[in-house]
């Protein structure tokens, strides 16, 4: 009985994080983006600086009619948002925010592989949506999503392989336990490659070619309305949280900090995640969208060679230490 309660509590905690953090990131995006453009952003919903804007948006989405196009493949069309969203929930389970068994939903032995594998599944949701909508813009969006995923999955994997080599384990808490501060300069290239490839996989600007609203409306999500559309948006923001958390735990040392190591590890993790989320928003505001050929060139001719060089460097240093 105690085990059941323990599991239930952990799942509830993960679910709460799953629901709250994306909204926080979304609200931060509203405000940070507004101020970076000399605006104020939402100011009315909730009274104080529009803090409840996303709640209001959610209510609005819930009220909208759920439209399925006449020519669409109904079941796949309706299933797609769930396929896009659920993997991120699963990934959150495996990310530790502090040392000790209490600070992680479930320790997974091959945690790194688990995380990357499940993240890759999420893209299937976009593909299903793009194909099932019976809309040429959706189909184009789906195609671009697939092309982008194929290009950026590899550098992401290679970067993670580098850090796994450095730690000598593929378990995420294991990597964190092995972390030393000098890993930061050692793995910095890998971290950059991972972060950029992750951004591309989330289709965040400047890598938002698959949903480029000025040319293909909203890519694979063009035909979606109401709650299903909201689920896709939620998937994007959970994706930001997951990407930032992964970069934090794999490359930035997670709960390790200059001081306050005991009991305050989770503060460090959250702080690093918040800073990275800010960077994600910052990049969105600062850079224009990359063209499709630029996207492919960046992946194949810059990120993959960099990741391979990082692996070589990791190997050399590892051998030198031993």
């Amino acid at each position, binding site marked *: 009985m105690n085990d059941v309660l323990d599991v239930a509590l952990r799942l509830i905690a993960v679910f709460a994080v799953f629901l709250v953090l994306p909204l926080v990131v979304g609200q931060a995006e509203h405000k940070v983006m507004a101020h970076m453009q000399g605006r104020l952003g939402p100011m009315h919903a909730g009274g104080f600086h529009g803090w409840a804007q996303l709640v209001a948006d959610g209510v609005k989405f819930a009220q909208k009619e759920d439209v399925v196009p006449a*020519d*669409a*493949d109904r079941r*796949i069309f309706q299933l797609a948002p769930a396929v896009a969203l659920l993997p991120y929930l699963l990934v959150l389970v495996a990310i530790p925010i502090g040392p000790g068994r209490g600070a992680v939903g479930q320790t*997974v*032995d*091959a945690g790194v*592989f*688990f995380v*990357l*594998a*499940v*993240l*890759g*599944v999420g*893209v*299937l949701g976009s*593909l*299903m949506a*793009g*194909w*099932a909508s*019976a809309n040429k813009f959706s*189909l184009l969006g*789906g*195609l671009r999503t*697939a*092309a982008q*995923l*194929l290009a950026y*999955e590899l550098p992401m*994997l290679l970067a993670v392989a580098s850090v796994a080599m450095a730690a000598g*384990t*593929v*378990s995420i808490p294991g990597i964190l336990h092995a972390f030393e501060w000098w890993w930061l300069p050692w793995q910095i290239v890998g971290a950059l490659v991972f972060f950029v490839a992750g951004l591309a996989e989330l289709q965040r600007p400047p890598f938002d070619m698959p949903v480029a609203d000025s040319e293909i409306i909203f890519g694979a999500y063009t035909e979606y309305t109401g709650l299903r559309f909201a689920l896709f948006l939620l998937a994007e923001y959970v994706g930001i949280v997951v990407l930032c958390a992964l970069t934090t735990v794999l490359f930035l040392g997670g709960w390790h900090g200059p001081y306050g190591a005991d009991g305050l590890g989770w503060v460090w993790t959250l702080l690093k995640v918040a800073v990275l989320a800010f960077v994600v928003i910052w990049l969105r505001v600062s850079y224009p969208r990359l063209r*499709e*050929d630029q996207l*492919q*060139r960046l992946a*194949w001719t810059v990120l993959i060679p960099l990741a391979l060089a990082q692996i070589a460097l990791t190997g050399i240093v590892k051998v030198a230490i031993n």
Partner: protein
Amino acid sequence: MSVAATAASATAAAGPGFLSPSGVEIAFLLVGLVTFGAALVTVTTRQLVHAALWLVVTLGGLAVEYLLLTAEFIAWVQVLIYVGSVVVLLLFGLMLTKAPIGRSPDADSGNRPVASAVAVAAAAALVWVVVDAFRTTWIDLGGPAQGSTEVSGRFLFRNWVLPFEALSVLLLAALVGAIVLSRKNGAARADGNAAGGSGKEQR
């Protein structure tokens, strides 16, 4: 593959707990049945993209079977490579061919008997090999995981290095072949537009 999995499940159930199967065994059998069903639908459905999506279910089911057999590493690699990449590539190709929504009857070729004969032969061979290799081997779920990353790595790089490296050379050959093929096509069309996406489409 799914046939092999169900066969493996049958051998597993024939062990000590044959009359009073444990929860894991029941789960294994059920998942095996689902996987087998999904595999059947994959080859029989007349809608191309549905077939690809049922393939996702099949491969996912296989990953779950690996998990139940404590081969965690293999399970996640299965999801990562097959569900995350191969099926995505497949869908990418299907979308490029403008796969229609609904049935595509012209996708059936007349090779059904030959194909099923080959499939049955392959399944029989696999089942026979697996049954013969493992017979009454029993996985001890209580002890340390026997399919963990560490164990798999040790096996792969101590006992099976040569096949592993041979496989990588094979993949490299396939890669080089793909590049050669796509470049040749580009030259024949006599425009230097073989960059990025177009090169990949031809692959």
